[in-house]
């Protein structure tokens, strides 16, 4: 009904507006419902990660391999839902209106940083697998009884490599060969051909820092306020926060280049109901990080923590061991070796699937980013009419 027909009538104009408002509300209601669902799902998923249901007997310890795998699953679910809300059946022009015209590109920049972090973490898993294999040598050496001096020495050698591998992993550059490498027990003094220190920093540029990337990702993460909070800015913020949290947790767990100065919390406002569990997890992990940071460690991954603890205890044992050894100590060591074997088994089962999952997350982020860019591109070419690419063509 054209407005002109009712121009004369005041009541007519009001009824037009009301129709319009009702029409908008219809969509708006659906949208609010979707947003609520999204928030609830996010909240539920993180709540399960924080405190799994009591009937779950084999609950995964925080930051264990299986917990991380669950975390990545949570991410994939959130991403799928997020895209459904923002892209499916929606007029693309809404994505390029304020405030999304600023928020979406920011999210996409975070996505790129997340990709680099995925790669760094994948690299880190490689070094963890190396540690796993060293631990398996220790198990081979010590699992047969009685333990001979030879086997004890063998275990000690592997343990020394293990512990130095754990301490080296965080350092930048391939030139830090400070730790005593067990390739040679220094017999030939400054032997020129020491076998190389296994460094991770090969793949990444010298001054790249995981901690700085996380910081940059979190820098402009600001919760929408007022009117914006009821619109699409809200799910964008939620997804951004989820992305930052997941990357942060991965970096905290898995050794990758330069994690010094990793932030231990992000300013997610406590009044956001969906964020309670996430904030709870942040606090827990952040506390652990602060505790261990001073000692210097190889990541908060639960299995690595075990390896470190058991490794340190067993290296003392093997150092002072002489056949047949004290019964108590031998029994204690046996129990530790069994625990070590169990940890290695879990690593053997879980690390490669974890890497595959990180890869999946990587590809998913690439895809989602491409989808958003497509939508944004369509919008910009519709409005501007000139393809940006022409800049290359002189003039």
């Amino acid at each position, binding site marked *: 009904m054209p407005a002109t027909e009712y121009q004369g009538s005041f009541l007519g104009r009001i009824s037009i507006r009301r129709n319009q408002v009702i029409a908008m509300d219809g969509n708006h209601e659906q949208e609010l419902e979707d947003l609520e669902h999204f928030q609830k799902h996010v909240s539920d998923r993180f709540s399960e990660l924080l405190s799994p249901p009591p009937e779950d007997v084999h609950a995964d310890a925080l930051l264990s391999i299986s917990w991380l795998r669950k975390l990545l699953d949570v991410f994939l679910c959130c991403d799928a839902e997020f895209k459904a809300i923002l892209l499916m059946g929606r007029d693309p022009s809404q994505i390029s209106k304020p405030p999304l015209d600023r928020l979406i590109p920011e999210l996409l920049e975070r996505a790129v940083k997340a990709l680099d972090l995925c*790669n760094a973490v994948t690299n880190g898993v*490689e070094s963890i697998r190396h540690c796993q294999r060293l631990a398996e040598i220790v198990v081979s050496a010590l699992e047969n009884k009685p333990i*001979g001096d030879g*086997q004890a020495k063998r275990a000690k050698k592997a343990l020394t490599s293990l512990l130095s591998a754990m301490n080296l992993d965080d350092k930048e550059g391939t030139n830090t060969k400070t730790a005593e490498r067990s390739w040679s027990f220094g017999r030939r003094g400054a032997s020129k051909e020491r076998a190389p220190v296994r460094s991770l920093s090969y793949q990444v540029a010298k001054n790249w820092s995981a901690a700085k990337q996380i910081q940059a990702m979190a820098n402009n993460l600001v919760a929408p306020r007022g009117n914006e909070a009821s619109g699409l800015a809200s799910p964008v913020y939620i997804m951004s926060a989820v992305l930052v949290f997941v990357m942060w947790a991965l970096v905290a767990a898995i050794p990758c280049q330069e994690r010094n100065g990793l932030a231990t919390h992000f300013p997610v406002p406590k009044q956001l109901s969906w964020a309670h569990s996430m904030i709870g997890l942040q606090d827990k992990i952040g506390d652990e990080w602060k505790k261990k940071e001073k000692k210097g460690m190889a990541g908060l991954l639960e299995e690595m923590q075990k390896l470190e603890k058991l490794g340190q205890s067993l290296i003392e044992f093997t150092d002072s061991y002489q056949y047949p050894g004290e019964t108590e100590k031998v029994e204690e060591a046996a129990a530790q070796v069994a625990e070590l074997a169990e940890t290695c088994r879990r690593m053997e089962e879980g690390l490669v699937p974890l890497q595959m999952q990180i890869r999946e997350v990587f590809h998913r982020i690439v895809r989602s980013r491409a989808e958003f860019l497509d939508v944004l591109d369509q919008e910009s070419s519709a409005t501007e009419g000139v393809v940006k690419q022409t800049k290359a063509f002189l003039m």
Partner: protein
Amino acid sequence: MDDGESAIPTYEGDLHVVAAAHHIVKALGATKNLSHDLRKILVDLDAHLSRITLNIDSKRGRGLFDVEDRLKQAERKIVSWESDPMMIWDSGPGEASEYLEAVDEIQTVIDGLRGLSVNGNRKQKELLHAESVLQMAMSRLEEELVHILIQHRQQFEPKYMSSRSVRRDVVYDESFVSIEDESPETSRRNCNSDESGECIVDLVHAHVIPHIKSIAKVMFTSGYGQEFCEAFIGVRKEALEQYFAILEMGKLSIEDVLNMEWASMSSEMHKWTWSMKIIFRVYLASEKRLCDQVLGDFGSVNPFCFLEISKSTILCLLNFGEAITMGPHQPEKVLRLLDMYETLADLLLSIDTLFSEEASSFVRIDFHELLDRLGGSAIAAFKAFCLAVSSNKSALPFPGGSVHPLNKYVMNFMRLFPEYCSTLNLLLKDQNADANPVPEPEYGQNISPSTSCPMACHLRSITSALESNLHKKSKLYKEEALQHVFLMNNIHYIVQKVKGSELRLFFGDEWIRKHNAKFQQHATNYERATWSSILSLLKDDNPGSSSMSKSTFRERCKGFSVAFEEGHQDHCAVHGNGKELRS
């Protein structure tokens, strides 16, 4: 003496087992067609069984004393090397084989002792003693292994493959305008005739391979295979990473790649294609052979070690490729993207062969996916190129009316497409399912495969778009004559470029004829436009009247010569290429 004598019945049993095994081995050894490796295994087994027999025999006679004695002798050998600063394998072949024999002896003693069904403190003590000596030896062997691998590493020059690639860099200069007169020869790629095969080199000097193998055998037999692998992987992985660093592919994050400006990106993409070829065809093929030689007898350990050695380098190459496919697909990237696509397509077979195991399936999958994405990116850039040609806008008329820089850029760029003909056709055909249909060939007659292929159709539509654009630009000139001169010059340029390169095969004679005709048309129009106004000055207003006044006539002549001068000057100022234009 006490332990030995009471165990005599067991010795009998043991002897029977060993004799039976020995019999089987001898029977197998008599088989005619045994592979060299298998025969060697049987020979070793034969020797080992003989030793066990001797061992048992002697034990039967003298019990543990003999064992202790042999152990002492071997131990002496091994301990004597502990304090020696020299490396065993540097000290001559005799030393090395003696050392290995000593290790073998210890292992035999351990086997024998374990085989003794009697338990007792003395046996236990001897066993643990032997294991201790064994561990010492294993530790030493690990060092020797690392030493050998590092000492006898062979460097091969990556440069031997580089010469062919240098030429192409000239062509990928942004300033296409400056090389327009270069003959097509310099821009042609090398025939890739020697790229089909792999090139295997010795990464470690061939003469030390047997040494490494003998160390491997001893370490694996003694249950120290894990240590061997860790040492081997460590050294080989580092060697690969150092080599990769020589290739100077920067350690780039995805963020770096996405923010790169074109000149650096072009150079990195070029380095990537080159690195991919060298790493897969030469280095990894050679590394695989080395692993096969050293670890071939040990089952799945072989592919495992190979994967561990090569993983981080492969992921680096993969990562760069993926980062490139994420970026905006600007038109100037199209040629480099096609290069990357073709390089990877050529290498897929090598990749599949090198990483054929289940555990390394992700390598095959990821590179296959990367190929698809590179294809998509290349086509996107190609289409962006087409689009950019039509949407390039000018505000002012191009001074002088000569060949427009857009024309030069586009035509010089297009000259290079025919080299990628088969790839472009393949990719464009796949895309045909999409919304944008391939433009139909305009010229019905004389269709040959080359003029009707998808690439040819697209190229012709690019030139159409270029022509339309040039027409639009010509309208910016106020004078009709200049409009025609401009179009004349530019169409002439296009036709020359097509005729003078492989493009003529794809555009066809028909197209060339028609465009020559267009050029002629504009030439005619130009003449008419320029001279008609001048000629009109000579026209008699009153054709019927017999005379014109003298003054009018003089005026007209003056006007004519002035106009003629001006017209002539303009004509000279607006010059085109080639003699044809001036005639």
